[in-house]
């Protein structure tokens, strides 16, 4: 009973966020287009050398995901702050973790869709061959996305309410995501090289452990953080 109410809250929040994103159009298309644009800029800035580019492709894809993702997280709480909707949100009865779970769910859907587009663009633009191990690669991407979304949503819940939100979120988030970035790029590279399966395995375990640890830690911490 209580669980059903909570689940209804979680869904309501996720649905509201996704509706807003779709409604504002820029929301999804914009973030995805931005991811692709960043990818292209990275390609341009790193120079015209084909082999070097292919080498940098994986890193570029993850960086583009990261930068575009930050925008999504900030938006997700900013929508609450415009015209003071956060106060009513906090004033509803029901446990606070439902708010975090709802935001998390919305962001997860959003970022997953965006990553699909950025990865596709990366494959095309940088001429990356799809390896036989692609299901594992999808797993790596999923683990990376979860890590990104969990910490991104958590930090955005604070930064968006501070002065200087646009700046504070990446400042807090980027250093924390170093393991995700390294794990995801290195594992992806190994899988694309289609050789060092063992190497990828270690990184995948690291990513999974990372996701689990921070999923638990952020759920515990959120209740303290959301109070004003």
């Amino acid at each position: 009973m209580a669980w059903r109410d909570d689940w209804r809250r979680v869904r309501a929040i996720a649905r509201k966020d996704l509706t807003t994103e779709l409604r504002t159009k820029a929301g999804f298309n914009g973030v995805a287009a931005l991811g692709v644009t960043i990818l292209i800029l990275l390609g341009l800035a790193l120079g015209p050398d084909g082999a070097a580019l292919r080498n940098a492709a994986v890193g570029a894809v993850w960086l583009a995901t990261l930068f575009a993702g930050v925008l999504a997280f900030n938006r997700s709480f900013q929508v609450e702050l415009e015209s003071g909707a956060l106060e009513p949100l906090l004033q509803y009865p029901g446990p606070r973790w439902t708010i975090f779970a709802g935001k998390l769910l919305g962001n997860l859907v959003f970022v997953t869709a965006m990553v699909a587009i950025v990865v596709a663009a990366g494959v095309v633009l940088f001429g990356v061959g799809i390896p036989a191990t692609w299901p594992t690669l999808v797993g790596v991407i999923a683990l990376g996305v979860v890590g990104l979304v969990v910490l991104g949503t958590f930090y955005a819940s604070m930064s968006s309410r501070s002065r200087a939100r646009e700046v504070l979120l990446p400042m807090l988030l980027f250093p924390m995501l170093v393991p995700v970035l390294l794990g995801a790029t290195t594992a992806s590279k190994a899988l694309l090289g289609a050789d060092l399966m063992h190497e990828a395995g270690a990184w995948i375990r690291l990513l999974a452990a990372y996701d689990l640890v921070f999923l638990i830690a952020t759920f515990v911490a959120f209740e303290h953080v959301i109070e004003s």
Partner: protein
Amino acid sequence: MSNGQSDRAIDVSGLGKRFGARWVLRGTTLAVRPGEVVGLMGQNGSGKSTILRIVATLLKPNAGTAQVNGLNVVRDATAVRAQVGYLAHTPGLYDDLTARENLKFAADMLGMPATVVDASLERVGLARVAHERVRGFSAGMERRLALARLFLRTPTVLLLDEPYSNLDAAGVELINSLIGGIVRTGGAALVALHELAPARGLIDRTLTLVEGRIDAARPNLVGAAAGVA
């Protein structure tokens, strides 16, 4: 829901709140009995909104306690939220959702059935624009929609922060019927306002906030020739 001590719907005692180094509330004590409507008055910046926000569990006091139906607003915040209906200065709506979507969201969060949504929209007179986005709403339409949220369920305690502002005559009647409805079911209301005129007849007594405390010397404006301004 409420436990035994329900002879006081709102019980605020020795409340202190500071922002930075400045103390806005300095030991405010007030009580509202069930069935009673109390007007909270005071100059701009005197701390009316701050009191309402503390009772609504949105702000933590630095000293003193506040209780709603015997429940402490800090320790039993979740239980308090289930009993309190709060209308703020700002409407707190999602601009890119329609009026109906905004209310549906509130119903989901309150655990109310979806059927109450349309009734509530009808009641505040926004049924005609139910499927328009809030972004283009006028000031009064936004206030009405915020108000519609309070019609979704029947709280036992109403906290209204200058509810009459931006509303036309029909909107003023809405507020009064909201308050009247709560009082009839034995609930209580604390209403911050500057001018008693629109609420005339509904407010049982007024309290005036001066220097962070309820001023005992100020006359209870109700019953007196209460025209303000």
